């Protein structure tokens, strides 16, 4: 028996040693053997050029405003070597707009800019565009019914994406996604939208801001996750969202928010001291967040709007939040410093009027078309000089996303490889 045990031990030792050695070799090997980043994934191999396309704001517009504009962009070899390739453009456009490759007939029909543009129009009118948009909005909102639990009072997690898709497909203004007061919980079955209003108890709906699925998906302490969702989804940047032109040295860093420092709850008696500066300057983000979050505090974990605050405070005993946990009594709710709002519908209007929101959707759609990562998660930012003309066209033509998509998919930068 002893001999058998010894043999088992030996085999175990040998196997473990070999396994660990191989594992280490495997991990290290695959990481190191292949060298450092060479830019392959950023499209360097494709090359490209867009010598001042007016359609893309490529014409030099003077001061870059610190947004990354490159005065030498027009002489970059990766830009200069691009050539128009409608065949290549059609393939990637088809995959993005209808989720499929172009047919042979489509390929043969495209011979120039006009026929290519006509094909893009055809895709935008294709029923498959609706399905592809729905998927896009699910991924943008990071929620959708597929794979999600049902029952026990849980809402549909798909209505927000369906509503956003309906707004886009029906050529409604993009801002309806934030401000519409009726039929904000539609369903989409068999290729047909069926209008419906949300039944989660809100007095007045405000686009997806009052959607039960989103409110449930982003339920968290003090409603901060809901605020973060709004910031990253509709403004395309992380907190902090506001910056003072005159930062103040404070604690272990600098206070950079334009809000009065004492405009949020703090001090030793507060459940959460948002004025703490000992480690990080909490107020840099929370001056903005605390003026928004209480508006979303009445939604419970199932996205139902209740008459009292439902979110919890992460302090001893996890009590339900009170308004004083976010703000001093004299403070009002606000989208940004100086932009007070009374309720969620007013907040929706304030967000919709924020120029950063139009810039955000243009940036996100641009990244999508150009096969880039997400502007927030992958820091795939786009200098405004690239999108200025698109934003201008978008905002001056009723904020129609289909028109925006057409402009992007027919842009010089898109059709050049």
């Amino acid at each position, binding site marked *: 028996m002893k001999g058998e045990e010894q043999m088992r031990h030996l085999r175990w030792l*040998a196997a*473990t*040693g070999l396994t*660990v*050695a191989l594992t*280490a*070799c495997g991990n*290290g090997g695959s990481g*190191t*053997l292949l*060298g450092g*980043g*060479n830019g*392959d*994934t*950023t*499209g*360097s191999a*494709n090359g*490209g050029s867009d010598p001042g396309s007016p359609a*893309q704001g490529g014409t030099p517009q003077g001061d870059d405003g610190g947004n*990354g504009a*490159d005065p*030498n*962009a027009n002489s*970059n070899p*990766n*830009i200069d070597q691009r050539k128009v390739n409608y065949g290549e453009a*059609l393939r*990637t456009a*088809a*995959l993005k707009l209808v*989720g*499929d*490759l172009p*047919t*042979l007939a489509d390929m043969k029909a495209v011979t120039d800019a006009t026929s290519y543009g006509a094909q893009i129009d055809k895709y935008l009118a294709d029923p498959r565009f609706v399905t592809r948009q729905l998927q896009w909005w*699910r*991924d943008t909102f*990071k929620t*959708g*019914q*597929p*794979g*999600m*639990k049902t029952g026990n009072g849980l809402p549909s*997690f798909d209505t927000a994406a369906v509503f956003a898709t309906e707004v886009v497909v029906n050529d409604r203004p993009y801002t309806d996604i934030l401000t519409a007061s009726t039929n904000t919980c539609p369903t989409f079955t068999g290729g047909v939208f069926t209008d419906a209003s949300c039944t989660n108890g809100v007095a007045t709906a405000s686009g997806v801001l009052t959607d039960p699925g989103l409110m449930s*998906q982003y339920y968290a302490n003090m409603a901060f996750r809901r605020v973060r969702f709004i910031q990253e989804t509709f403004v395309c940047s992380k907190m902090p969202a506001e910056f003072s032109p005159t930062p103040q040295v404070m604690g272990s860093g600098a206070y950079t928010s334009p809000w009065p420092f004492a405009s949020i709850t703090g001090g030793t008696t507060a459940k959460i001291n948002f004025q703490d500066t000992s480690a990080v300057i909490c107020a840099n983000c929370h001056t903005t967040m605390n003026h928004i979050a209480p508006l979303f505090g009445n939604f419970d974990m199932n996205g139902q709007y209740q008459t009292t605050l439902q979110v919890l405070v992460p302090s001893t005993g996890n009590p339900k939040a009170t308004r004083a946990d976010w703000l001093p009594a004299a403070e009002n709710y606000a989208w940004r410093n100086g932009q007070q709002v009374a309720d969620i519908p007013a907040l929706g209007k304030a967000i919709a009027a924020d120029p950063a929101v139009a810039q955000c959707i243009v940036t996100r759609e641009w990244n*999508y078309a*150009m*096969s*880039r*990562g997400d502007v927030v*998660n*992958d*820091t795939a*930012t786009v*200098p405004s000089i*690239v999108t200025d003309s698109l934003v201008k066209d978008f905002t001056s033509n009723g904020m129609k996303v289909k028109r925006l998509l057409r402009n992007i998919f027919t842009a010089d*930068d898109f059709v050049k490889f």
Partner: protein
Amino acid sequence: MKIKALTILTVLGFAAGCSSAPNDVLVGDMDPNSLASDQNTQHHMQDPNTGENGISDPNSVHAEQAQVGSAEVIARLHSCSKITYSSMGNILKNHGVNTGSTAQNSAGLLYKGGASALGVANYGGRVPEMIIPSTAALSKEFDIMVAASIEIQAAAKAGTLNMTACPGTQLIDTTGNFTMDGLSCLMGKPATADHLSIANDAIAQATSQSLTKDQGQQIAIASILEAAHTCE
């Protein structure tokens, strides 16, 4: 005694496994003709949707981009996003591949079982479908394409290939060579004379190295699919 010897061997195994020396040797001034050279190997970048839960390391992103150009240049160039899971299914169906197949190693089975590796969304975890392809996603995609090539070639040879986006199009002609329209359908973009030449050359090379013409066609189809559909 044996235990001591094996324990020493085991420790040595650990040490050897952890050492970076063998890998370091392969990095840097490699013979450009070596399969391990930077020019020839897939760059295994950080998988953005793994350890960081969908967040790319900004430092890595900036380091990669700096090699291409300014932020404006980067923004104006096409990058490489993953073909979505549903689009991948559509491409396979378009090429007559049976996505419902349950046969071992079939493209359909690999596709169905590979959803996670292909980066599908996990909405419960607030994770959208992967945008930038991970190494796992590309590997799975290539496995599927290889399996699909066998199915496509067999159907083309039997005259039963049904490329739904290209009705009536023959992929392979009566001489066993590829057709221009057939390649266009495989790639989703107009094929060039170079594409045709490379594809048919693959058949010739295969047969010159003791492979069958069928195998040469399969290799060509797999290569074309992988090259064409690595990025969306």
